């Protein structure tokens, strides 16, 4: 193979010649890089031109092939992908944008545009001269999935995974599976009994391929996609397990409104979670009477404030559901909901809201600047509030004050998120690749579902669990192993040059940089997403992106600085 480069420029059906003077461009390219052949084709996005490219490549036998066409977001990407299938793998190919990035934005300056086009082509050629590629060695992934947390999301995920023929290890911190479902009696919006619902979910994990590990916490996860090593601890015993994929479904924690609205100071002031437990008992044993005459719910307690500036999404429907349950137990009970706007989106929840209104539940809007006040001596007696709409002061008698509190992220998620290269949002919930792949973490083989992402109703947690399971199964089947854009590289460390300072390990967002036994850094290509942070911080230039190294960028910059045309 010769040292010739081939630059094929797409003239876009001769529509660019008003701005780009092809002859000037070619002269400039030849002046700077005499070993370059320049060819023109009218429309690379059509198949017949691809055949011509193929024959040109066969004729010239170039070392590098540059395509000057339109933006990758227009047809460029597709053209490049097609070319990759026709060209030999030994030829490095690149695409530069001469249409959107040059001709179309400099129509008033043909001279400048032509000089720029020549520069763009030379920059692309300079980049190709410095390109190296890394071969990815990929072994078959372990056909086993670790599901962290046996709440509704985790249970649903496990069921699907087992049905898809994968081995499932379901680790649960507590003795019983079910998570928060165990504390709830009924589920909104259809008022399904949570025990029945949990029963159906538990049937799903009653499968020979599923191992349920109660009282097990996941202390650390390392290793690479397809071969993660999870360190589990079970009542003091440490155990490590190799899994192909991880589904994080460890949920969230209910907040207790300590010090707010005289919670725990007055009897009868309880949190929504405590009301759930109480109602569950009352509904199971209908003989014990409900000895109250009025109940007041206060919404958005410890939520949508400075500490937790988010809407927990489940508290409004929960309050509606529980108000109706109280009404069912005792129809003459006066139930008032003090809220900051009822959040009940969707058909089913809207119906629930209307049902509550029709059943005689009172609703009052309050302003967080003038919050309701709970009064009483030893027991809660009344709640006073200034109605935000009328401005009038109301005093409600209240034997029972229910404080609706949000779910908060589990503090333990931070450690796992760091191990798995996952980002936490400012509140502390785990983030997937929003908005397109919200259930997939950036590192392949890591998925998340349920309230670990954000508070969700039970049925949505189940849906997310199932979706995450399917994604994990696709990953383990060899599909979708690398969601990274094609053409963008993976980083590597030249161990001879590495001084072992560990900066790359400190900055890598995905835990891809690790310390090898000899003290130098190594980069896991499966975890690496190619951002180049390690290369940018490396003091010795050992960490690099071989496909687009700093040397390539440097050569591109030099190409711009040394241009002869204006």
């Amino acid at each position, binding site marked *: 193979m010769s040292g010739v480069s081939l630059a094929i420029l797409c003239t876009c059906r001769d529509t660019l010649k008003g701005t780009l003077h092809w002859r000037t461009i070619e002269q400039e390219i030849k002046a700077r890089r005499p070993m370059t052949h320049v060819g023109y084709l009218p429309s690379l996005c059509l198949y017949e031109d691809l055949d011509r490219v193929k024959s040109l490549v066969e004729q010239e036998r170039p070392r590098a092939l540059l395509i000057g066409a339109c933006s990758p977001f227009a047809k460029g990407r597709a053209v490049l992908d097609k070319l990759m299938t026709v060209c030999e793998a030994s030829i490095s190919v690149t695409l530069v944008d001469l249409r*959107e990035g040059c001709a179309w*934005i400099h129509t008033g300056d043909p001279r400048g*545009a032509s000089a720029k086009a020549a520069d763009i082509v030379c920059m692309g050629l300079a980049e190709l001269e410095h390109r190296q590629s890394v071969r990815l060695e990929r072994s078959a992934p372990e056909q086993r999935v670790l599901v962290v947390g046996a709440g509704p999301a985790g249970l649903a995920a496990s069921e699907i995974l087992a049905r898809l023929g994968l081995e499932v290890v379901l680790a649960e911190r507590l003795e019983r599976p079910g998570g928060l479902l165990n504390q709830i009696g009924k589920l909104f919006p259809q008022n399904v009994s949570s025990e029945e619902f949990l029963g159906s979910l538990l049937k799903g994990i009653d499968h020979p391929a599923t191992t349920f590990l109660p009282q097990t916490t996941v202390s650390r996860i390392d290793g690479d996609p397809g071969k993660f090593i999870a360190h589990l601890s079970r009542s003091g015993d440490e155990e490590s397990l190799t899994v192909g994929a991880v589904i994080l479904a460890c949920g969230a924690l209910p907040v207790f409104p300590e010090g707010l609205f005289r919670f725990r100071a007055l009897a009868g002031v309880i949190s929504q979670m405590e009301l759930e437990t109480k109602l569950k008992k009352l509904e199971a044993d209908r003989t014990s009477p409900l000895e109250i005459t009025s109940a007041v719910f206060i919404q958005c307690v410890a939520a949508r404030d400075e500490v937790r500036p988010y809407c927990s999404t489940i508290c409004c429907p929960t309050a509606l559901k529980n108000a109706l349950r109280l009404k069912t137990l005792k129809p003459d009970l006066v139930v008032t909901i003090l809220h900051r706007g009822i959040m009940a989106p969707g058909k089913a929840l809207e119906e629930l809201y209307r049902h509550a209104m029709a059943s005689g539940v009172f609703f009052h809007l309050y302003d967080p600047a003038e919050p309701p006040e709970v009064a009483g001596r030893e027991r809660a007696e009344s709640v006073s509030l200034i109605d935000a709409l009328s401005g009038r002061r109301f005093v409600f008698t209240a034997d029972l004050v229910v404080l609706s509190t949000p779910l908060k992220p589990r503090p333990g998620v931070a450690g796992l998120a760091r191990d798995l290269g996952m980002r936490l949002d400012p509140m502390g919930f785990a983030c997937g690749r929003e908005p397109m792949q919200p259930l997939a973490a*950036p590192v392949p083989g890591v998925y998340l579902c349920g309230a670990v992402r954000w508070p969700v109703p039970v049925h949505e947690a189940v849906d997310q669990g199932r979706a995450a399971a399917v994604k994990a199964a696709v990953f383990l089947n060899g599909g979708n192993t690398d969601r990274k854009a094609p053409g963008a590289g993976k980083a590597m460390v030249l161990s001879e040059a590495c001084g072992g300072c560990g900066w790359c390990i400190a900055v890598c967002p995905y835990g891809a940089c690790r310390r090898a036994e000899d003290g130098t850094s190594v980069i896991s290509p499966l975890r690496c997403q190619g951002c180049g942070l390690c*290369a*940018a911080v490396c003091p010795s230039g050992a960490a690099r*992106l071989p496909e687009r190294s700093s040397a390539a960028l440097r050569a591109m910059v030099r190409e711009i*600085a040394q241009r002869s045309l204006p």
Partner: protein
Amino acid sequence: MTGSYSSSQSLTRERPVRAILFACRWCALLGADRAGRERLDLPASFRLIPVECAAGIEPDLVLRAFADGIDGVAVLGCHLGGCRYNEANRSARLRLFMVRDLLDIIGLDAGRLLLSWGTAHEGFQFVAQVRRFLHKLEALPVVDPDLLQQREKSYGR
């Protein structure tokens, strides 16, 4: 401040501005593409280099670009908190802030290094950003690599 560098230079421009834009391919490159599709007119004096992430731009690369006689370097990344690579753009920002300080110290205007996060995602934003930057560079004297080298020697290393 341009410091002693500008005082020893005549303010007449003997060559057009040379500017490099590093555009994050998840954000600013979309803005650039959009500007192209909408055929918004721009001066032809800048060159765009798409990068995978703004975090991959080494301080060295920026400094050497100036040493080569590039008048301005812009780094256009995604908005802070919206990086494709978790929080990589935040660390890029911290690192490039230090480069700006360095530019001030050596007497090149720190404004020659434009750092912008999430402000070039739309075509019109990209165009406005680039026009403003080029306009600013036109008001500054050209960067003369020879002069920079002379100054480096005069520090008497």
